[in-house]
């Protein structure tokens, strides 16, 4: 008997969901106990359309080949002391932020997608989630391997996982992903696959990878290109998940809308760190945060994606308008925060050079000279007892209960003031940097009161290597607990800068 002719889609079904069966010895609920409590209703998992058709054997081949190329380039870079040809050692401070802040999130995504691959009752999306779980492990490990070489010569790379768990500014990315993995499997995929991978990845990845290319960081750039094919799979999964959930049942629509509202603002606040990096920390700049926001968010997401989702009854996220209003303020506010507290950070900051301030004024004609330049002019004159002839904010900031960024966001409607919001919940006052974060808290206060706020924890005495011997010993004991060694303070008093100058004194001699 001749074999039936099958389409590729049918074949792929047999390779994946065809392996599934309905259990008869136990209840399906006992195998997938976390599938119903979020209130998402699925009528028919068979309506799932695979966003890509990857088999395991194809996966092994493609991924092994991609990695073979990546490691060849990385090894070449290492062997040739490629770090010496970077644009400037200042560049590496954004890579420090990346490896401390983002690499552990790649790892958390790996475990989070393993959760989805285990606990979503639909075999189609489970399969796609599994491949993403593998990919995220890849991204973690490649980034660690690339960082390993920089770690040998520069500060700020030596303890990324410990720092991620402890250091104040890293609680911003950590709390973001902790929020996602403690949610149910449906919220997780909406948060990460859709809101992050689909709506925000470009805003995170493109600046980092182009920044790497502009500044001579071949391994990061190569990784970026190589990860793109993984990312495009992740993005199509994200869109597919949301459309599928919306099509399955009308009761899902308000739930998904609430998640989109929440995760838009959560993700947007997270990427504000990228804004600071783009505008202030790259020696050779690619584009401004504002330009990138307009291109990737306003044009592609708001005008493209959300137009497309209208027919499902989905509107653009709440507080999107606020983020548009903030686009000329955000990166300046966040860099100023990082700059002010650099004495307790595992990267360096610096006062922008005059030509850099010119660039900022040109890119932000309505805000930079008006509201920010004077801060750096004053910062040059301020003297503190700390290294680096410039201003530090000696003290501990008030953190937003949700995004955990210090409360230093300018109110675009009243630019001489910072936004401050609060909520009273069960007899306690909680503070927020924005209406978006306040709204997120109000949806699930029982979750956000659990937040491990770094500043509160310092006050509670939970962040000291040893009990401080007096008020002057508080910060040193915290830094010791963070394992911050010579990683902090201004770039121009750093070992990185000293070494960089030394290494470039007479690096190459040309003999004719």
């Amino acid at each position, binding site marked *: *008997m001749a*074999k039936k002719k099958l389409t590729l889609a049918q074949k792929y079904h*047999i390779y994946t969901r*065809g392996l599934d069966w309905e259990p*008869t*010895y136990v209840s399906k609920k*006992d*195998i997938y106990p*976390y599938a119903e409590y979020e209130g998402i209703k699925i009528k028919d998992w068979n309506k799932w359309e695979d966003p890509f058709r990857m088999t*395991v*054997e194809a*996966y092994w*081949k493609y*991924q*092994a080949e991609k*990695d*073979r190329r990546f*490691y060849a380039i990385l090894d070449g870079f290492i062997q040739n002391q490629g770090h010496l040809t970077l644009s400037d050692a200042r560049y590496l401070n954004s890579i420090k932020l990346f490896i401390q802040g983002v690499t552990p999130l790649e*790892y958390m995504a790996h*475990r989070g997608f*393993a*959760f989805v691959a285990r606990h979503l009752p639909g075999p189609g999306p489970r399969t796609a989630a*599994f491949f993403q*779980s*593998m990919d995220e492990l*890849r991204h973690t*490990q*490649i980034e*660690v*391997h690339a960082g*390993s070489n920089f*770690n*040998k*010569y520069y*500060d700020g790379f030596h*303890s*990324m*996982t*410990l720092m991620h*768990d*402890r250091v104040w500014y890293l609680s911003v990315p*950590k*709390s973001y992903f*902790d*929020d996602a993995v*403690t949610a149910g499997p449906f919220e997780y995929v909406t948060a990460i696959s859709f809101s992050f991978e689909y709506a925000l990845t470009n805003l995170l990845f493109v600046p980092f990878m182009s920044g790497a290319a502009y500044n001579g960081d071949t391994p990061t750039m190569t990784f970026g290109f190589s990860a793109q094919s993984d990312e495009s799979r992740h993005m199509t999964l994200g869109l597919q998940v949301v459309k599928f959930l919306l099509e399955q049942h009308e009761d899902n629509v308000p739930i998904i809308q609430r998640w989109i509202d929440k995760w838009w603002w959560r993700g947007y606040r997270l990427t504000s760190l990228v804004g600071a990096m783009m505008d202030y920390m790259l020696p050779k700049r690619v584009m401004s945060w504002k330009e990138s926001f307009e291109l990737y968010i306003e044009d592609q997401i708001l005008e493209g994606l959300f137009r497309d989702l209208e027919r499902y009854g989905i509107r653009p996220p709440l507080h999107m308008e606020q983020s548009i209003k903030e686009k000329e303020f955000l990166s300046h506010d966040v860099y100023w925060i990082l700059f002010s507290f650099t004495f307790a950070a595992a990267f360096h900051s610096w006062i922008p050079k005059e030509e850099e301030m010119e660039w900022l004024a040109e890119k932000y004609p309505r805000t930079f000279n008006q509201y920010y330049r004077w801060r750096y002019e004053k910062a040059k004159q301020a003297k503190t007892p700390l290294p680096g002839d410039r201003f530090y904010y000696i003290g501990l900031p008030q953190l937003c209960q949700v995004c955990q960024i210090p409360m230093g966001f300018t109110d675009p409607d009243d630019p001489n003031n910072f936004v401050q919001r609060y909520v009273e919940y069960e007899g306690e006052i909680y503070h927020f940097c924005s209406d978006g974060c306040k709204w997120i808290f109000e949806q699930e206060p029982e*979750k956000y009161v*659990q*937040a*491990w706020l770094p500043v509160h924890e310092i006050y509670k005495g939970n962040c000291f290597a040893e009990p401080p011997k007096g008020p002057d010993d508080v910060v040193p004991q915290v830094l010791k607990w963070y*394992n911050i060694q010579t990683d902090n303070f201004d770039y121009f008093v750093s*070992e990185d800068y000293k*070494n960089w100058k030394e*290494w470039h004194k007479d*690096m*190459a*001699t*040309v*003999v*004719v």
Partner: protein
Amino acid sequence: MSVQYEIKQKVIEPKRLAFDYLLKRYGNRPASRYEEATVDIQQRENFHYRPTWREGVEIFDVNYSELKLTDYYSFLDPRQYYYYTYNATRAKNYEAVDKYFEFCEERGLFEKVNEDWLKVFNRYFIPLRHLEYAGWILLVGVARFGYGTSITQCAEFNACDKYGNAQLITRIAFELPEPDGDIFENAKKTWLEDKIFQPLREYVEKLLTIQDWGEVLIGQNLAIDVFVNPLVHIELDNLAVENGVTTFSFFSKYFYDMYKDNMRWTEKLFEVLLSDPNYGENNRKFIESKLNYYAGQISKAIDEFADVFKMPKKKGDFKKAKENVLNHAREVYGKLGLNIKI
């Protein structure tokens, strides 16, 4: 005019030889890529929120299993797989599979398989794709809930191998003639209804409801795998050869190699669990009590396969085959110093 450039390269002494936490563990030496990719990678502390899907646990929590280690990184994968080396190894392993498919196609080997024997093969072999698939679900659960990257990474790769196995069986089935209609529908029906698979399916469905990742590993890697692989890929394959069918021996060897490869990390992990200075004794009690149960169940479950040994030409000796399987299991458990009655 020819110009010669001589680049004088500076020798720069590295400031550190490795990440700080690796230097603390291993002393002042450079770390391997496996160590960098694995050791202390998982988040440990200060988790912001508790899971909404389960009460009383943290995001990563040693209490997801009764099995515990003083230092979770006292276990390291003897194969030293991290993402790249794992994928590169499997891509290379699979090259041989691709070549073999080409060879079979060229020689028309799949079409030439004896029809009576094919009925037997379709009954015991093709439905195993469902069993392998269940292994994937179980192991990806270990990859989520296990503690420490060295363990969970092995589980993730093992999960991938299981899915790969399920798809390789599928690929073989695509090549086979279908004298009795849709081979996949028939195989699913066999898996769901044929008496030879029912105890095995009951076993695996029950295992799928277990939350303790250590127990899952005992039930899957130390029980299902240890019994089913020698039964199918050694004993039944030998019998197939005695019945004149050699086409599938190549695949059986591949699956068996995959099993052996995964047993390397499994055995090492259990060795470390059993010898832990603080938890070793508790781990032993848990492992022996669970494994006595699971090995007993799986041993009974495969007795149904006696029916398969009635091959079309030469009848096999199930009792002897079963004894060989039991001896294999005894050897595995004996090496670990476990007291298991089977």
